[in-house]
């Protein structure tokens, strides 16, 4: 194709039109995406705030008042955590069906309740948690035979992890 000035201008205009069209399509997509986000924001405000349960309430609810014995469960946590915002922990309880983890010194002591299903490969989980201050972490496992085992580990926290 021979490209003279007139054709070049026409091509340029066509290209610009394509860009403008794509731009408007993008803007439309952005608006669509923004709408659900706004809905989500409204839902957040209405999200139920669960009451802060005490350590005793957590244990009572989990064990139903049954006796809890030491041993049979391993709780791995660092001795000293420089940053309380993210403290790696690992809980391993062979034969457990559920594991409760509590950070006893936090404003809301609950950390997690893990239930293991039929496809679980072990009774072990590792995660990262927040600790507000130096405190004991407690893990309680509900064993398959209905008994409860507990392990406690003290973690010294240099910088707390709950803001404030």
């Amino acid at each position, binding site marked *: 194709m021979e490209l003279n000035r007139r054709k070049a201008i026409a091509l340029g205009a066509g290209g610009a039109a394509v860009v403008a069209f794509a731009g408007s399509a993008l803007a439309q997509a952005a608006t669509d995406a923004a709408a659900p986000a706004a809905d989500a924001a409204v839902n957040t405000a209405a*999200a139920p705030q669960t009451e802060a349960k005490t350590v005793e309430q957590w244990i009572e609810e989990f064990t139903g008042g049954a006796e809890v014995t030491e041993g049979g469960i391993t709780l791995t946590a660092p001795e000293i955590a420089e940053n309380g915002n993210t403290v790696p922990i690992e809980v391993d309880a062979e034969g457990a069906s559920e594991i409760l983890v509590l950070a006893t010194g936090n404003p809301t002591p609950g950390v*997690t309740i893990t*239930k293991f*299903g039929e496809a679980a490969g072990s009774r072990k989980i590792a995660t990262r948690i927040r600790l507000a201050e130096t405190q004991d972490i407690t893990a309680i496992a509900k064993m398959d035979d209905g008994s409860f085992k507990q392990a406690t580990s003290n973690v010294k926290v240099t910088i707390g992890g709950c803001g404030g």
Partner: protein
Amino acid sequence: MAENVKPRVKVPKSASAGEVITIKSLISHPMESGQRKGPDGNLVPRSIINRFTVELNGKNVIDMQLEPAISTNPYIEFDAKVDEAGEFKFTWYDDDGSVYEETAEIEIS
């Protein structure tokens, strides 16, 4: 309000039948604890992932209830027993009602 929530999982491509594999999962999420004060001095409302479940071919692997003490960008590592090829389904439930899903295939070698 959780924005830019991005789930990530690390699952081996294949396993031998009956093998126990370790799965690592991470989801980018602020996990606002409801304890922290914002720049205006008011408490920032709680907004966390409150539940995380994993299934392999519809069979439950783990089902976790998460509390505000779980760190920002919740990282969870656990083991699964693979008896047959199939698909892992990971689901995170947000306080605001959002549900984030991720899947990963696994083959038997």
